[in-house]
């Protein structure tokens, strides 16, 4: 007997009633799809809708940000920072990410996003502690609601999802904004974070800064997706594509995503098209994998120049404003330079202080060992000094 006969129907009857029982439409993908072109405001008819106050604020932040990047790069050349992954050219992404958040919201930066933390109000020295190398995180994340700068790619994204989810469970209307690069979208944690966020409808905004390169590897070797924003559709969240050098456009798109999340509308994936004007870090040589022509082309689409043009078209870019903004940026740079030129205070015994709430007996033994070594070093140095020798022996060097 065939299965059909068991069911009491004959082969002649139609047995094509409906799709498989387990299938049902889940969500209409059309509204989730990103625009065909990156969303822009500057240089379009819609530019006029950007408030002058916001434009001026963005301008100040962008100029400060560019100066901050230049200063941090210079400090790296002088050996004051171990390494600096610059966000030069990406200042609009950095600044917009910081400005769209309320104080109670959380920012989840990667190692290239120190400027976003600074734009949020974090002391630049605290932001750069990781890259100076005196500790891994230079600030209390809970005080500033800025997660530690994350080095393993995309691994901060599930943290953002979990934190946002926890906030919602507690009844707090807190939003988390997590930053990642184009390369990071290939990581498994990117996938898992977006999936969890959509399933939980967690109040998270994922900002992908597509700056064209993962160190040397161009996007074409990273992903075959129509755009990185399209990846959102597979998770059931909206994807937005935006010009990452158009600060007001980014501000608008990110603000909408943040407010949507805050209202309980769930997560959004925003892809910002931008360009890394500098090498990956000071240790990288970008001329090995890209042409000067390409860099020049992007120089013509500079985020600061775009805002400047709009301000001057409105007659708002007075000499006074320009000077005021420049002065503010110089002040930031000078303060950073002065403070970074001082050696950080280091206490080797800190190595054991924060492994566990209470040091284990083994850690206490190792602590005693290091203390004895330091005492011996100091005694040697003292003896050497007594003989009139070089007095820097044994001093901790950054």
């Amino acid at each position, binding site marked *: 007997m065939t299965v059909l006969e068991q069911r009491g129907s004959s082969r002649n009857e139609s047995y094509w009633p409906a799709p498989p029982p387990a299938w049902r439409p889940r969500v209409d993908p059309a509204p989730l799809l990103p625009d065909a072109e990156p969303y822009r405001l500057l240089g379009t008819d819609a530019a006029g809708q950007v408030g002058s106050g916001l434009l001026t604020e963005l301008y100040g932040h962008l100029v400060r940000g560019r100066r901050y990047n230049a200063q941090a790069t210079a400090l790296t050349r002088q050996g004051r920072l171990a390494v600096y992954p610059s966000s030069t050219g990406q200042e609009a992404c950095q600044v917009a990410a910081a400005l769209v958040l309320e104080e109670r919201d959380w920012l989840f930066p990667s190692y290239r996003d120190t400027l976003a933390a600074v734009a949020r109000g974090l002391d630049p020295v605290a932001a750069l502690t990781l890259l100076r190398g005196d500790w891994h995180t230079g600030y209390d994340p809970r005080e500033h609601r800025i997660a530690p700068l994350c080095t393993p790619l995309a691994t901060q994204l599930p943290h953002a*999802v*979990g934190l946002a*989810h926890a906030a919602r469970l507690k009844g707090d209307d807190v939003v988390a904004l997590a930053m990642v690069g184009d390369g990071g979208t290939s990581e498994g944690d990117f996938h898992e*974070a977006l999936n*969890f966020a959509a399933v939980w409808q967690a109040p998270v905004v994922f900002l992908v800064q597509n700056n064209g390169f993962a160190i040397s590897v161009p996007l074409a070797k990273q992903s075959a997706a129509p755009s990185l924003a399209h990846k959102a559709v597979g998770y059931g969240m909206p994807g937005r594509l935006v010009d990452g050098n158009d600060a007001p456009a980014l501000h608008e798109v990110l603000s909408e995503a943040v407010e949507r999340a805050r209202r309980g509308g769930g997560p959004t994936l925003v892809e910002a098209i931008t360009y890394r004007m500098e090498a990956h870090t000071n240790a990288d040589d970008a001329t090995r994998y890209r042409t000067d022509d390409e860099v020049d082309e992007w120089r013509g689409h500079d985020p600061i120049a775009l805002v400047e043009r709009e301000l001057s078209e409105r007659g708002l870019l007075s000499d006074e404003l320009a000077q005021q903004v420049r002065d503010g940026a110089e002040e930031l740079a000078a303060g950073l330079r002065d403070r970074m030129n001082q050696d950080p205070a280091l206490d080797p015994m800190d190595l054991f202080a924060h492994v566990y709430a209470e040091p284990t007996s083994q850690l206490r033994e190792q602590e005693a060992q290091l203390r004895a070594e330091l005492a011996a070093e100091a005694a040697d140095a003292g003896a050497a000094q007594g003989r009139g020798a070089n007095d820097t022996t044994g001093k901790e060097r950054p």
Partner: protein
Amino acid sequence: MTATATEAGRKPVSMAQALNRALRDAMADDPAVHVMGEDVGELGGVFRITDGLVKEFGEERCGDTPLAEAGILGTAVGMAMYGLRPVVEMQFDAFAYPGFEQLISHVARMRNRTRGAMPLPLTIRVPYGGGIGGVEHHSDSSEAYYLATPGLQVVTPATVADAYGLLRAAIASDDPVVFLEPKRLYWSRADWSPDAPAPVAPLGRAEIRRPGSSATLITYGPSLPVCMEAAEAATAEGWDLEVLDLRSLQPFDDETVCASVRRTGRAVVVHEASGFGGPGGEIAARVTERCFHHLEAPVLRVAGFDIPYPPPMLERHHLPGVDRILDTVGRLQWEADWTEGSGD
């Protein structure tokens, strides 16, 4: 643990039930405790350790997650950052591996990298070990991987009472704990009163389960009952073996271990994990460094072979058993069969 339920309120309880009770009590005591993992909701977990929790506390406190271990651990990190106390279930030892980057790069380091500002009170429950006839990837003893990572605590109960007490202590700890549950002891039973649980010892204290004078068997988790059986059998050979249950591999209780070995003068470390690179090597080194002048023989190990975990029909040859333990104890230089210069 002889089963004669006489005292009022004491009845045979399985380790699985004790773990379930520990989760329930922790959730009732502290609203910050959230249980999460694959199938922990309606199903109650594949081993039923979370049975009934969703009914009692709701989906928000005991939730099924998508099937993604890095995502589970990563989101749990974020939840802990916001002040919750997540208890994560990894379904099986070998299925926990996708979460290793989160575990090693974040879970273990968050307190350290933030100078103590952001500790992570996070418990990661991992059913581990063999002896249940599991097919490939269901029987790993993965403790050495965790032990190699500073910042983690690694705890494993071997008794019903400890299953409750140590899990409560793990959840109460402000630092992350990898809580290894010996699968084959899930159904072991003991007289235990859940209404008056034994006082919870601080993590990091070993316990002598059987006092003895001839040699110390140092063990933990699934190998404890095997060692107890071996110690009973050893009396026929005239050996009075002490059996020491580590309970916590990190923090490691040097004090109790060394006190025992100094007393007995001989030691064998017993575990299921492969010997090469396994915890036994570290333990043997620590004991030798600290008790050298009290030792009558080298510290020996009975461990799983250095092979990928075998298929279930062959696993009995791999797992430390009573005979292998007794053979090893027999090699602890009991007679004057070794003299200096004999070359052995």
